[in-house]
């Protein structure tokens, strides 16, 4: 449903980061994250326009940071069919694998269109600055709103 080319591109498991940098890191990373696991995660991060790796589920977050991200996405009215979440507490391999894959030490982790956006701090910052809304609109996750909807000062 998403990229039909995905299946064939899975042969190439190197991340799209600059090759020279990635190559040196990969040597270290490979010991922990197999090509197979990397390919599976690559598939997972592109499984939906928006993918969140979290502790618990949207209805029952099991960590304050994961809860905060769910609440932020809720505030922006992200529809459920555009967001896929993975509960890393149910999958220890994914829990460690996604940290390696993203080169990011903490959960939650948000991906939009296969691109790593950040964790709770970044999302919160982007929410406050308005960048998150722009990002969601640009990627057609939420509809564009007209200018008149400028929130009244509270």
């Amino acid at each position, binding site marked *: 449903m998403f990229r039909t080319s995905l299946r064939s591109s899975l042969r190439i498991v190197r991340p799209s980061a600059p090759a020279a940098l990635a190559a040196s890191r990969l040597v270290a990373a490979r010991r922990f994250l197999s090509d197979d696991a990397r390919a599976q995660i690559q598939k997972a991060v592109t499984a939906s326009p928006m993918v969140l790796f979290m502790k618990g589920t949207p209805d029952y977050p099991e960590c304050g*940071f994961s809860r905060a991200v769910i609440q932020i996405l809720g505030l922006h009215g992200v529809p459920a069919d555009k967001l896929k979440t993975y509960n890393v507490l149910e999958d220890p391999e994914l829990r460690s694998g996604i940290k390696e894959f993203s*080169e*990011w*030490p*903490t959960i939650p982790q948000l991906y939009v269109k296969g691109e*790593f*956006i*950040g*964790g*709770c*701090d*970044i999302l919160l*910052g*982007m929410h406050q600055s308005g960048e998150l809304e722009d990002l969601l609109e640009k990627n057609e996750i939420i509809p564009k709103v007209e200018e008149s909807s400028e929130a009244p000062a509270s």
Partner: protein
Amino acid sequence: MPVDTKDLENTIRNLLPVTHLEIEDQSNGCGENYSIILVSEAFEEKTTLARHRWINELLKDQIAQMHAFSQKTFTPKQYQAYLAKGAST
């Protein structure tokens, strides 16, 4: 192994130029849960994601020992704006 606030502060100050640094131990002293505000000119022209990645990398050993680590990163200019905004609300 818990992380000592003083050690964390020294580590950060040794690794990059610091204009302002606040370290809050949110774990009631067990050293597992830190929140920092870090202001540095070294953040100029870096995106938030790049800044956080950089700090995560610099503090890799410390973060590995914590349960939670939260960061706010500002350039000196952004921090002034942040303070001004905080004061007016």
